């Protein structure tokens, strides 16, 4: 099916690529079906584009790429609600905010978006780690990466 996207025009997506949230993302109640769009050859940044609402396109990041020690503790029961999970079929992304002052770029480490790529079900789950910030500044980590 063809969908209109906010940033990348019209895209052809397959039914099997559609990710479903049983509970819509907090603050974004008008859609529970998204596709993951990757335009970044490093597979660091992605877009979670709504299938239902072209304007809903959320920037997300694969934190493990820049912070290998990132280890959100999420409720096993909430992950199992997405379907049977193994280490291989679970992907975790974090919402990313890039303000005008890019040094203030931040990611939500406390509430990762967890996707089961077998069932294509997803949920934003609040981690139980005490030390993970909802607005964690990541500019320096990105900067270090630029110099690699």
């Amino acid at each position: 099916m063809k969908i209109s996207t906010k940033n990348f025009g019209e895209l052809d997506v397959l039914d099997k690529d559609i990710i479903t949230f049983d509970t819509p993302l907090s603050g974004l109640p008008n859609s529970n079906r998204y596709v993951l769009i990757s335009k970044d050859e490093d597979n660091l940044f992605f877009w979670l584009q709504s299938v239902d609402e072209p304007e809903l396109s959320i920037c997300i990041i694969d934190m493990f790429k820049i912070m290998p020690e990132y280890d959100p503790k999420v409720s096993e029961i909430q992950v199992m609600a997405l379907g049977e999970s193994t280490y291989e079929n679970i992907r975790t992304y974090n919402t990313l905010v890039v303000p005008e002052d890019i040094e203030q770029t931040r990611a939500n480490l406390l509430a990762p978006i967890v996707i089961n790529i077998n069932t294509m079900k997803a949920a934003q789950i609040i981690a139980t780690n005490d030390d993970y910030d909802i607005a964690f500044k990541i500019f320096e980590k990105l900067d270090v990466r630029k110099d690699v």
Partner: protein
Amino acid sequence: MLALTRKKGESIIINDDIEVVILSVSGEQVKLGIVAPKEIPVHRKEIYELIQKENEAALSVDVSKLDLFKK
């Protein structure tokens, strides 16, 4: 909204399996104890409001901004 008056040590039951106990009351502060099945997430409301704010802010990221982070 349902309003119930409870004393310290008393509790309410929601949906047969969630218990909210008043542990202590001190001035304006009330300490609650929540006994719920493990699959029921319980968090402070402020956390949800902050997550909502970040989700909304992630909507307005400009695609061209990400190029600044390319190697």
